[in-house]
């Protein structure tokens, strides 16, 4: 399975959100998309998930354009986790996760498994509007897990922004497991340390342009990231000898 992004540009009126992006990624990998605010991360992910029509260029998933597929067919190939979910009506968390099976047919076992994975099985009957931000985010992730087809595409826009440390680790493990089952996982992540730990490949955006792309260990260095984010960064080594990116 291969994703190929070719000369992708997106404009909103006079604003250029993405400018001539060309990149590719293979199944079984985790790609982290990094960049300052308003650098075009969410727009890139929406294009990859087939939710946004680009002004120019194309996104091909195994040589086929996701935009041309009926949403039902696309749902069997791509699972999407938004930065923050919106749910109208009085739904329980379980019902929100069940909606991930809308196009694929009901599967209580997959829904239970997804809820258990994100630690929500015992709180599945909580009403959405009464849930905390972290629970809502975990519910969105569970919905994508209930929907995903191994070997497909899993696209996540800042999936850990509302999570505590334990659940960040849980989600990181889940994403690794998905990649090990052949999924191509693409996630926008603000936490650079998490991205360094998680990513096989990194795409770094600035002002809508892809300024760095490649193997994360090669691309995510203090010098390169410091320049993109406009801060001083350096490696620090802990007692176990593990390197961490820090602001001195």
């Amino acid at each position, binding site marked *: 399975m291969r994703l190929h992004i070719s000369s992708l540009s997106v404009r909103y009126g006079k604003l250029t959100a993405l400018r001539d992006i060309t990149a590719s990624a293979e199944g079984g990998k985790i790609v982290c998309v990094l960049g300052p605010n308003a650098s075009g991360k969410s727009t890139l992910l929406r294009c990859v998930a087939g939710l946004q029509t680009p002004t120019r260029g194309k996104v091909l998933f195994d040589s086929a354009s996701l935009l041309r597929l009926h949403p039902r067919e696309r*749902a069997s190939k791509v699972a*999407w986790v938004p930065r923050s979910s919106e749910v109208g009506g*009085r739904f329980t968390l379980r019902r929100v996760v069940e909606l991930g099976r809308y196009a694929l047919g009901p599967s209580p076992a997959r829904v239970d498994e997804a809820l258990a994975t994100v630690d929500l099985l015992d709180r599945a009957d909580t009403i959405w509007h009464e849930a905390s931000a972290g629970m809502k985010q975990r519910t969105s992730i569970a919905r994508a897990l209930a*929907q995903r087809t191994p070997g497909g595409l899993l696209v996540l826009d800042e999936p850990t922004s509302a999570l505590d440390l334990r659940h960040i680790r849980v989600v990181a493990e889940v994403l690794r497991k998905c990649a090990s089952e052949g999924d191509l996982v693409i996630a926008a992540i603000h936490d650079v340390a998490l991205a360094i730990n998680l990513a096989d490949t990194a795409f770094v955006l600035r002002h809508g342009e892809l300024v760095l792309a490649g193997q994360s260990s090669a691309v995510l260095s203090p010098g390169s990231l410091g320049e993109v984010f406009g801060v001083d960064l350096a490696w620090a080594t802990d007692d176990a000898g593990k390197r961490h990116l820090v602001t001195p």
Partner: protein
Amino acid sequence: MKPRHIFVWIVLLALLIATCIARLMITRSTLGELSFVWPDSAYIGYRLVPMFAAIVVGGALGVSGMGLQVLLRNPLASPWILGLSSGAGLGVMASMMIEHSRGVGFPEGETIGAVAGAIVALVAVYLLSRGRGGLDPVTMVLVGVVVSVICGAGIMVLQHLVPMGLRGSFTTWLMGSLPETMSYVRLGILGGVVSVGTLLLAWWGPSLDAACLSDDEATSVGVHLPSLRFRLFLVSSILAAVGVIIAGPIAFVGLIAPHGARLLLRSNHRMLAVGSAIVGALLLVGADDARQLIDLGTGRLPVGILTSGIGGVVFLLLLLRGRGKV
């Protein structure tokens, strides 16, 4: 289905049957005395017609309101938010004006005027709300409000031009009232339309559930939103138009019924479609029962006044209850 839901269905159906029986039995004599007796066979038709009309109109408005609340992603949406009643009102007013100026009445002139006005308003709202991705809910609400205002201005101009007597009959139409005479065939056909509309929305229930997510999320789980929104617009508008044809603009039932059903049945739209129809029918038959009991010395009140008055208070209570104030 959960036992709680089975209990709710039984209670709703029992209440609907009870209010229907009450509608047939409540009798007010010419001296104003109330009694509770089964009517003579000569008079029962005058009670059966408004009772069936209330079921059809209440059901139509309830289901239409539910569909529009999903379509517009707005819990305050009702069948009148798209300018349908104002368009129908302008159509009725125009037909009265034409009849008056030509000095002859046309058969079904008011009905034809209402349907034509409603269709023109809805087509305008549809065309002006269309974007690249299909119907846009926010634009649709704004366009609906603007179309209502323009139709309202047209109504006022025509009211200014017609003689006083005609103004009175138009004001009566605007209040909304259930007919006491109507052919059972016509009522049956309109009831059939409402049943088909209700079943369609129930069939689309899982899509309506998914459409409660944001646009991106709904699309990502497999909903074709432009197609769903067009279908919802079409069916909800037809159902609301059925209500207007039979009873004129009956307020609040389309707003309250889906909320009542949601309170009792949660947010599974397959059940909510049928639930909104039953709650809508129950509200309108109940309001028609209540108006038989009220005597202000000037005849019975039009049922639309009761639905507005009671519906407004109930809605305010629901709103305050949601905010934990009552």
